[in-house]
């Protein structure tokens, strides 16, 4: 996959037929003076795409500007170790591809890979963002293939088990199959039933034939299609609870038994159509509900997979090798490059400078003395160093935290959703009515027990469950879908209900209210040209401060022949960008948050950085307060920084220097006092508090452990979507209540009619369908954009 020089020349920027002002590859707005591309990566990607003859991509792509800018660094993991050998000697690789957002992207990736001579198949899934490549040859090719996708501008990550759990959803498949069977059954039974309803003059024998036909189709349908409900009802029964699925199961089974008895005695009607239609409608609701939540979970898994990193293991011969963090054992030596996040606990033989933002909440990097324990999750802000690992992943501090979280999650599983609360009251009442009807007709009126069964089961089926069982899920589908479009990922089924009832908001500072990474402080003394030059140099480095410079001046072109001196800075000829010692400046209090630029013949310039509050932080806090939530700030950072943030955002009480235990304790104090706290946090130190809170949210740049502990993950930047999420959750809760009361009101009319024996299967079908449709239409209002 190399582009011949002659071919490159054919695609000079002037020939490219695109409107001026946007990068020809990724669509980022261009700065004056730039050619057709925003960076060298885009230029390379464009040449690659055109060289393959795939430029139709540019006419079709629908990605947001800037998403396809190729990352500066190659993929940090070793793709060759992920390749699996197939039986026929070929290899297979599964990758998570971020940025795969439109059909044209799928096409580009697949075709670019298919153009490789040894690639046998390449298939990208747009909804799962998963790419499967199969090729002839050794595992080593995996590196080149992964790098090829990265060069096109897509970020690749290993397809992790977390992604697998989110997509290979056996339960979802089972639901879909049940829906197909129930839909087939209900339509065919209806065919027979309509003949019976319409054929009043039908002979006795023909009617018997029709009844037997309906039973033939209906029985297997009820048996197979109802499985998901029977299983759930059985679980609830064993736990000694009544849930909506129990009502559905009993209704369906009772209807089937009654219909069978009607078949044997050749009664006027069978009710197989009601039973199967009920199943089909409920399953359709459930499949939609699941599909919506699956999308949200997949998006969360995508965020997590991008964070999944490998570790540079130092082998016995002194070379380093990238291996998954899971394979590291205690006692191994690993190399932590400048700017890397520590994946494991360990100790270093030298003093190191770490950004502990994620582990303690401190926003200023801290020097850790040699021999002191370094906690996984912190970021190396100083030069690269060697670390001796003290605990494997599963014994380390992160794993211990994970186990704590699991216990906290189980505690929260006691939350009872509104649908279940309704079911607890509703199910016994309905069953008592049905039993009373049966006994009333049998003994009171004196008909045979078979005849008495008909009104009793009719009462079960018209009250039951259809509207009521759909009432809440329909609202959830609409609301979760609307939130998904605004970048709010709802991962837990009861999260919306809990969010609606939250009355207290506890926020973390570092990474939540603030950006969580250094940002350049504006300084009048720095001329724009110098900033641009510094940013151009900084493009060559992954160090957090370099990246902050690049963010401050995103249109700076990349420079070639920049040398990175690890731990000190960047050098290009006699141009220097780095720390004080590197640039020959005597600095007194270097907090690790400043850089110097030295140009030949000029005085060195200083760039200062700090962890800045998000632009919309004050707005979000004000919006939360307007929604009636009490706000408070809980941070592990120093007192002065927390006080400053509290004043700037107008947040209520604040507490600084809070350890993870302090945070968790504060949440349990709030809960003990009867409050329902919403915890918003991003760090490892917030995870326990997140798991214990009534409901929790974490921003997209949060640590993976915080996101896993949260009910809601905010994709996109900042917290701006949080007040909107609360508004939608509250509206959804209101609509769910409306739907439940509507279903109950329906019963006030339908139940007496059924008890008195006026309801035929035709009426039951009409009642069922109409109440469901009204409930669904009402639920759609939850997704409306404006309240």
């Amino acid at each position: 996959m190399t582009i011949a020089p002659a071919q490159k020349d054919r695609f000079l920027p002037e020939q490219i037929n695109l409107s001026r002002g946007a990068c020809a590859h990724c669509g980022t707005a261009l700065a004056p003076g730039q050619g057709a591309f925003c960076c060298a990566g885009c230029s390379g990607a464009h040449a690659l795409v055109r060289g393959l003859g795939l430029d139709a991509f540019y006419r079709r792509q629908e990605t947001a500007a800037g998403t396809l800018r190729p990352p500066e660094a190659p993929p940090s993991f070793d793709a060759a170790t992920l390749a699996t050998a197939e039986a026929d000697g070929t290899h297979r690789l599964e990758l998570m591809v971020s940025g795969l957002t439109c059909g044209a992207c799928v096409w580009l990736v697949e075709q670019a890979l298919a153009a490789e001579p040894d690639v046998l198949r390449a298939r990208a899934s747009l909804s799962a963002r998963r790419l499967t490549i199969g090729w002839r040859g050794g595992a080593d090719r995996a590196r080149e293939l992964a790098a090829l996708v990265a060069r096109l501008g897509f970020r690749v990550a290993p397809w992790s088990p977390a992604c697998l759990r989110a997509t290979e959803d056996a339960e979802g498949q089972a639901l879909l199959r049940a829906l197909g069977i129930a839909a087939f059954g209900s339509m065919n039974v209806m065919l027979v039933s309509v003949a019976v309803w319409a054929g009043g003059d039908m002979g006795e024998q023909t009617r018997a034939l029709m009844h037997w036909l309906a039973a033939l189709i209906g029985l297997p349908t009820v048996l197979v299609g109802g499985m998901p409900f029977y299983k759930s009802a059985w679980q609830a029964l064993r736990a000694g609870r009544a849930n909506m699925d129990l009502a559905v199961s009993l209704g369906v089974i009772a209807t089937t038994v009654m219909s069978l008895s009607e078949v044997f005695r050749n009664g006027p009607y069978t009710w197989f159509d009601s039973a199967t239609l009920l199943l089909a409608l409920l399953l359709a609701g459930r499949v939609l509900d699941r599909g919506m939540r699956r999308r949200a979970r997949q998006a969360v898994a995508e965020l997590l997979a991008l964070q999944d990193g490998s570790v540079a293991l130092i082998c016995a011969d002194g070379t380093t090798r990238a291996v998954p963090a899971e394979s590291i054992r205690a006692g191994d030596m690993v190399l932590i490059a400048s700017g890397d996040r520590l994946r494991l606990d360990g100790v270093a033989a030298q003093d190191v400078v770490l950004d502990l933002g994620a582990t303690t909440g401190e926003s200023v990097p801290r020097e850790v003395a040699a021999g002191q324990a370094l906690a996984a999750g912190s970021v190396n802000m100083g030069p690269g160093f060697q670390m001796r690992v003290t605990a494997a992943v599963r014994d380390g501090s992160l794993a211990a935290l994970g186990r704590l979280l699991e216990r906290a999650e189980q505690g929260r599983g006691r939350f009872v959703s509104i649908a279940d609360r309704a079911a607890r009251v509703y199910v016994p009442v309905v069953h008592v009515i049905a039993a009373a009807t049966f006994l009333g007709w049998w003994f009171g009126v004196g008909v045979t027990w078979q005849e008495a069964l008909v009104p009793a089961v009719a009462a079960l089926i018209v009250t039951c469950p259809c509207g009521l069982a759909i009432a809440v899920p329909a609202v959830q589908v609409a609301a979760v879908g609307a939130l998904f479009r605004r970048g709010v990922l709802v991962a837990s089924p009861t999260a919306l209900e809990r969010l609606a009832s939250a009355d207290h908001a506890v926020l973390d500072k570092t990474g939540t209210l603030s950006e969580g990474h250094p940002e350049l402080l504006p300084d009048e003394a720095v001329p724009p040209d110098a900033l641009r030059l510094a940013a151009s140099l900084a493009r060559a480095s992954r160090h957090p401060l370099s990246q902050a410079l690049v963010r401050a001046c995103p249109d700076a072109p990349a420079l070639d022949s920049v040398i990175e001196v690890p731990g000190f800075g960047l050098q290009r000829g006699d141009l220097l960008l780095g720390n004080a010692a590197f640039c020959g400046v005597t600095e007194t209090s270097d907090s690790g948050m400043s850089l110097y630029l030295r140009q030949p013949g000029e005085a060195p310039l200083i760039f200062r950085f700090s962890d800045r509050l998000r632009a919309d932080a004050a707005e979000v806090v004000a919006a939360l307060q307007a929604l009636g939530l009490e706000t408070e700030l809980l941070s592990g950072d120093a007192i002065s920084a927390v006080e400053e943030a509290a004043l700037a955002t107008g947040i209520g009480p604040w507490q600084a220097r809070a350890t993870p235990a302090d945070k968790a304790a504060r949440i349990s104090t709030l809960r003990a006092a009867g409050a329902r706290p919403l915890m918003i946090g991003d760090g490892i130190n917030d995870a326990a508090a997140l798991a214990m809170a009534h409901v929790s949210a974490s921003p997209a740049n949060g640590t993976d452990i915080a996101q896993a502990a949260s009910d809601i993950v905010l994709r996109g930047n900042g917290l701006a979507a949080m007040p909107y999420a609360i508004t939608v959750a509250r509206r959804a809760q209101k609509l769910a209540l409306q739907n439940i009361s509507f279903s109950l009101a329906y019963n006030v009319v339908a139940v007496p009619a059924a008890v008195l024996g006026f309801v035929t299967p035709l009426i039951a079908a009409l009642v069922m369908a109409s109440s469901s449709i009204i409930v669904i239409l009402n639920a759609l209002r939850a997704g409306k954009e404006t309240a």
Partner: protein
Amino acid sequence: MNALILLVPMALLLGLLGLALFLWTLRSRQYEDLDGAASRILFDDLPKKDLPK
């Protein structure tokens, strides 16, 4: 009445055929990437490369 002997099995058979097809699509994972499938029909296929034997 005689027509039923023919029509009823035919209707059932056609229905079952549809069901079998649905189960087949489900088994061959055709519902895994609905968004991708929607845009896939618009792709122009490039000429197939010659696979070296």
